[in-house]
């Protein structure tokens, strides 16, 4: 039987690492973008995450499932300490290809006129969470890890993941309710757009 991807990467097989990059580049970029809210920072996080993963490959257990939690955990750490990670690889970052125009994320999400406003509102609500709550939310909700995987990614207990997620939910629900009240009775309860719409109206 072929050695697992895990074992091959741990043993320094660059070809296997390339396969990991192919699999994980998209989820890592999305995760990084959501944590940083910045396209160019997310590209830095993407590159640094894989440079870190290669450096830390000796820590991989040969046995185990997908490397997704491990890689997303590294990405979370890199995004949290971007400057520190960038210092470690300052030589490499100087060689990183740049100069492409940065795509406008608002154009990408949808053709709707209020896309940028909506994004800003989401980021504002997300920004009201503590960093640890943001990380758990991004890993579990947006990147689809389960509690145990998120715990593994962050190096914390499963119970910690649950309680951070629960705090995040309470805050976001409270925020949604407050904004709903502030924006008057037109809001339909449970409308997913409520947070967004009410923030926009508040800003008028």
């Amino acid at each position, binding site marked *: 039987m072929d050695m697992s991807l895990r074992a091959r990467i741990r043993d320094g097989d660059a070809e296997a690492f390339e396969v990991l*990059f192919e699999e994980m580049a998209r989820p890592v*970029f999305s995760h990084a973008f959501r944590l940083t809210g910045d396209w160019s920072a997310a590209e830095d996080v993407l590159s640094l995450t894989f440079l870190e993963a*290669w450096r830390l490959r000796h820590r991989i257990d040969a046995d185990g499932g997908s490397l997704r939690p491990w890689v997303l955990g590294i990405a979370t750490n890199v995004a949290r300490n971007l400057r520190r990670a960038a210092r470690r690889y300052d030589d490499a970052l100087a060689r990183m290809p740049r100069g492409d125009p940065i795509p406008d994320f608002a154009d990408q999400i949808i053709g709707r006129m209020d896309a940028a406003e909506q994004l800003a509102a989401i980021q504002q609500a997300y920004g009201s969470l503590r960093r640890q709550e943001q990380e758990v939310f991004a890993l*579990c909700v947006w990147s689809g890890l389960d509690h145990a995987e998120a715990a593994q990614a962050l190096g914390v207990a499963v119970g910690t993941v649950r309680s951070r997620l629960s705090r995040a939910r309470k805050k976001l629900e409270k925020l949604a309710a407050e904004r709903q009240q502030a924006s008057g009775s037109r809001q339909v309860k449970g409308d997913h757009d409520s947070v967004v719409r009410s923030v926009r109206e508040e800003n008028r």
Partner: protein
Amino acid sequence: MNKAERESLAGLLPFEAEPQLPNARRRLLKEFVMVEIRRSAERPRRRLVRPALLAPALALGVAVAVGVPALLGGGTPAYAVSKNADGTLTITINQAKDPKPLEATLRGMGVNAVVDYIPGGKRCSPQPRSTSFLSRQEARNPADGRPFHIWPPNTDEPGFRIDPAAIKPGQTAVLEFSVSADEKTAGIWANISNGPVAACTLVDSDEAPLGPPPGWDD
């Protein structure tokens, strides 16, 4: 965490679409990362070999530069092939423009190899270029313990190391090098074919530039 729970949480912060990195950008960043991790194996020297750096190795008798035919304008060889004491060869490429002189040099040294340079955004067609490549397992762990492509190179010397002893009579080695915009080599894919190898026609691609697609030998 179940689906309903995830969906109800997602509804609190409704990102309507995934922020997507365009393919071309992802490919560039992948090439960058792959070059860097290969470079990290070459420390402490990080640059491709220059004649001044090669000189001490020559003096120590560690390696003998054999094929240095094509010179760049400034007298720097476009590539060099050095013979190591253990019979392996180290290939260094300073300017990856035309793969055929390197291929000819290798053939002149008795190495039956096909060499191609793959620029960004391209790949060889067809892939796989042979129906009788060694599987990755066979290529990495041959019976005599001497794989063709030696990785990591276990030497301070930059460049790619191959072992001609791995090529048995009738076999052909295939070397594909990915090339960055400044004509430096980024990565290598190497394998040995028991049978004929198709010529490489470069075609546009946003897949991985080197070798057959993932899963080809599963």
